[in-house]
């Protein structure tokens, strides 16, 4: 019951601030928040008037003209399935955090924005990191934007953002305090020495 209430609270059917009036495009803007052990994606989706029927059909699966909680959540999951997030060549598994849907009337007029938030836990990693993000949701009708927010953690520094022409593919290089790259390569040897020392001490204690 508690879980259901939390889910209902996270999936709200309220108007997100109205944005541009688009026509034949589905604008998907992603803002990425980087923390040491977490990455958050806030995706704002604004449907043009002309593409509304296609977008709405993908949300309103029972065709009753209303976006139910379940349909909203299912749509968020579909978007989640169409994006890919990775760090340092490792695939990340972002999870659903929250969703806001405007009224159907606002969506229909091309003015309402759907706002989805996903997040993924990341290991603390090394000092130089590369985050990758791909958005393949509705590629036929979509235009994409993706930007990193300036990290709140002042020790995290964004080095470079790279994108393809359509911004469907994105790479973000950043640095953070951590194990230095030169030391990082020695990590297996250090771990081996530590393990050997541990077993040596244990053997001695047993013998005593």
């Amino acid at each position, binding site marked *: 019951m508690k879980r259901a209430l939390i889910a209902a609270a996270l999936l709200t059917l309220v108007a*997100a*601030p*109205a*944005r*541009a*009036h*688009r*026509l*034949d*495009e589905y*604008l998907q*803007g992603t*803002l990425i928040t980087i923390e040491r052990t977490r990455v958050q994606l806030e995706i*704002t989706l604004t449907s*043009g*008037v*002309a593409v509304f*029927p296609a977008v709405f059909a993908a949300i309103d699966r029972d065709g009753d003209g209303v976006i139910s909680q379940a349909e909203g959540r299912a749509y968020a999951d579909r978007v989640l399935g169409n994006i890919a997030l990775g760090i340092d060549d490792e695939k990340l598994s972002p999870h659903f955090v929250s969703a806001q849907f405007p009224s159907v*009337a606002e969506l229909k*007029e*091309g*003015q309402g*924005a759907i706002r989805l938030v996903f997040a993924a836990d990341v290991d603390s990693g090394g000092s130089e990191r590369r985050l990758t993000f791909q958005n393949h949701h509705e590629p036929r009708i979509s*235009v994409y*934007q993706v*930007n*990193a*927010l*300036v990290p709140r953690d002042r020790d995290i520094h*964004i080095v470079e*953002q790279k*994108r*393809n*022409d*359509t*911004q469907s593919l994105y790479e973000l290089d950043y640095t953070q305090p951590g194990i230095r790259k030169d030391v990082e390569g020695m990590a297996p040897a250090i771990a081996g020495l530590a393990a050997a020392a541990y077993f040596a001490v244990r053997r001695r204690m047993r013998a005593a």
Partner: protein
Amino acid sequence: MGRILPLLLALTAAAQTPTAKIVSAANAFLSTLDAKQRQAVTFSFDDEAQRKRWSNLPVAMVPRAGLKLGDLNASQRTAALALVSASLSARGYEKVQQIVEADEVLKNNGGRNTAGGPPPGGGRGGPPGGGRGGPPGGGRGGPGGGAMFGKDLYFISILGTPSEKTPWMLQFGGHHLALNVTIDGARGILTPSLIGAQPALYTVAGKTVRPLGAESDKAMALLNALDESQRKQAILGFKVADLVLGPGADGKTIQPEGLRASNMNEKQRTMLLDVVAEWASIVHAEAAAARMTQLKAEIADMWFAWSGPVTVEPGKNITAYYRIQSPHLVIEYAPQPLGGDPGMHVHTMYRDPTNDYGRK
């Protein structure tokens, strides 16, 4: 005596500080209203919902609160516009008038950029099954039958009590315009504000008007003043379709990109500040001077990024997106494909991500 009094009044007005003049204009406007109108136009200073009730969209699509110019009588309307004028510079107010006039042109053209131009929203294939996209209703009516465009559809509101000492706020906006002016003692803060235009080039009485023409021309001149290596840094290798930090993106700071002003020469930095001044100098001169001083101090950490075509036809607006960013500034210039020619439909955003609505 009959001649002395007006002279004294004029001298008194001239001696007033900008804030005193704005407060006088606000009180003069409020005195023209009846009790019901006063109630409608005033809000609590900390009314968050009203603060954020702004958009680039027509008022029929995103309803505004406050008083609509079209609902005011002639003297009330004059007093309302005198208040807007008092809070802005002469050029800032002229720009606002041209933006409002553009919307009147849009109304008279039935929602088209030009009389006989492409249909509202047309020009890029049109919606399937009808070709009636864009702001529904064209120039005549919006959702629910409300009027869509025109100079009567701009709203004024006051948050808090006009004062020379304690903070209060003036909002003026409608389609393609959202001015949020916080008056806090001598300070005048214009962030966040949305300044757009459609059509962004029109003719009135034989005269060509480009409300955001200087924003286009000065940025183009700056790009052309860069050498090849600087252009490689400034020109982004991807398309930017819209404002990144438009309505609803208060308090967010994106990572700056493009060419850093520390890698520009003195002349280029002056040109960059001149582009910035097109937004920073919309507010009244004294506040604009303080803002420009703040921004000049962080010029080394100011960035210029460009995405899209790198040429423009003489006398026309650029069709490229650009962004200027520094620790206390985000400016975005984003031409829109809706309506056919992106140079005829421009959205711009002016922000201080550290100081939305003068909170600092």
